[in-house]
């Protein structure tokens, strides 16, 4: 059974339909990519899944349970973690403390939480930066911090919202490695990404949305060949990382 099922979800803001009758599912251990031109409704769809918005219509099932409209903190405890497109570190807290906040989802004890946070930081190659303040980090490290915090909550499903935007090509390669490593550990990952090279390399399957509607779903190479997709989107951007 799939870990996440999005069933006919529609999200309206006033008269604007941001997501229109979107359905998709992610199997356990899968990496699903979500792409689409700017303003296609990717982030809104993400926010519906993560509990920030309650969808106007439709249902969201996580791990077999209907979680439509549940609050982000409850979803997090159930094993659904997300990153934000615009990173949101807690500026006055050290990197380690930032990640420790996430780790408290798993344990109530500070020492355990800190150990866990340290472990996640090491995994992401930030073991030496625990004491730094987020403001002093490079963009790549801030993106990693964002992932580290989410990972510390011990998620089953990780939603990554454009974690590669603004990175240099070498940094993108590293990020791809990190995400693959997570998948190899059995984590299920749902990715929004603009960098085509990355999403093509990572995803088991890709869903393309345009004006809030799904226009294509398939393996990366199928999507890349799809007429509608090329028309809507890839024609201009494919290959330019």
């Amino acid at each position, binding site marked *: 059974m799939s870990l996440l099922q999005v069933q006919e979800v529609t999200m309206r803001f006033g008269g604007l339909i941001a997501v229109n009758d979107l359905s998709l599912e992610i199997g356990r251990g899968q990496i699903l990519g979500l792409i689409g031109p700017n303003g296609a409704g990717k982030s809104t769809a993400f926010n519906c899944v993560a509990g920030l918005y309650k969808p106007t219509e439709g249902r969201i099932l996580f791990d077999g349970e209907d979680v439509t409209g549940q609050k982000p903190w409850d979803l997090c*405890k159930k094993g659904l973690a997300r990153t934000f497109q615009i990173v949101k570190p807690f500026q006055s807290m050290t990197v380690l403390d930032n990640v420790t906040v996430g780790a408290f989802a798993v344990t109530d004890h500070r020492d355990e939480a800190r150990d866990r946070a340290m472990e996640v930081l090491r995994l992401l*190659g930030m073991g*030496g930066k625990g004491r730094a303040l987020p403001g002093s980090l490079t963009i790549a490290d801030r993106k990693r911090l964002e992932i580290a915090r989410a990972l510390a909550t011990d998620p089953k499903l990780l939603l990554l919202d454009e974690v590669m935007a603004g990175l240099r090509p070498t940094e993108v390669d*590293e990020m791809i490695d990190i995400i693959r490593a997570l998948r190899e550990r059995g984590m299920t990952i749902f990715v929004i990404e603009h960098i085509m090279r990355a999403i093509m390399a990572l995803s088991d399957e890709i869903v393309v949305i345009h004006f809030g509607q799904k226009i294509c779903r398939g393996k990366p190479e199928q999507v890349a060949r799809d007429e509608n997709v090329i028309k809507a989107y890839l024609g201009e951007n494919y290959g330019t990382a």
Partner: protein
Amino acid sequence: MTQQEFKRNCLIAVTLAAFALPLVVRSATYLHILIILYLYAYMTTTWNLVGGFAGVLPLGHSVFVGIGAYTSTILWLQYGISPWIGMLVGAVLAAGVGYLIGKPTLKMRGAYFALSTMAFVEGIRVMVENIDMLGPLKLNGPRGLNIPPLQMGEGSFWAFQFSSKEPYYYIILTMLVAVLAMTSAISRSKMGYYLKSGGEDPDAAQALGVNVARYKVAAMVISSFLTALAGTFLAQLTLFIYPKSVLTLDLSFELAFIALIGGRGSIAGPIIGALLLRPVTEFSRIYFSATLPGLHLIILGVVLIVVMLYQPRGLTEPLLRIFDKVAARFAPALPDTPDTPDTPDTPDSPDSPNSPDSPNLPDTPDAPAGPDTQGTPAAPGATASASPREERP
């Protein structure tokens, strides 16, 4: 002696000195000034639990002081119940009121909470000023309540009245030390982390499993409870309370100012704020109130603006930096602390015994992320060219 130990010893020395102070300071006047100083530090510390940690701005904390003062006083005057018991009753009552104010408003952002706390104080003050009898309870309107002193020279623990200043001194100092220990424990606990993160960025905190509003309400309840204890103390110290002394915006704002100038959200902030501001207030009240009325409030306002513009996290941070330098002269800097390992590139086994609850994380050091992402303190791009990524299928 490590720096850590040096700092801890300093802390112990200061605490002991504070307890020993009445042996040296015999003057009742000076002791009274110190008592008031500690009282403000206490109330500001309890304010800081909400205003500092939870990142909101309560501007009506005097309502809890008032509830504490009125509850214990009424119970003592009308029913002969010891103020010590009244203190607890008042605190429980205040906690309930704190919940009532916080529950609906802490879900919303900033301004609403600040405004409703203000409205609450003003509303309660108007109420008390207009009521002589509330059912069987005598509030005595704007005239307030007098606690008749025991016979001259007599003190009684049960009556919370003492013939000299020393007992008051020790009571408030003990309360202050206890509440400081408590806030520092909270700030290092899950609750502290959750409050701080929720105060800084609610969206991000919620995504990490923090029910921000619930933790803020919890902080508000604890803070209201503790603040009310100070109300009873104040009533027993002055033996006279009236609406304009304990239920005012002035007191509420002063607590906020002390905390903000000292440093919101830091443990030492309220102490440093009270140490800096109370003397200025007392001094200018005594010497300038006739010739230059309001001068101390102008100074306060200017200091507040300047601190907010140039040192928005308060004056404690720069002062602590100076202290760090002093400490560094007396004790060698620690190469490392147990909490924050500085040794990034040791691929030590992540499946250490204290983390059995992480099934989703790689449990071997050579996870496919490869050595390049495993531990690179240098810029990430620097090692990427050596990445074995391309070689993997």
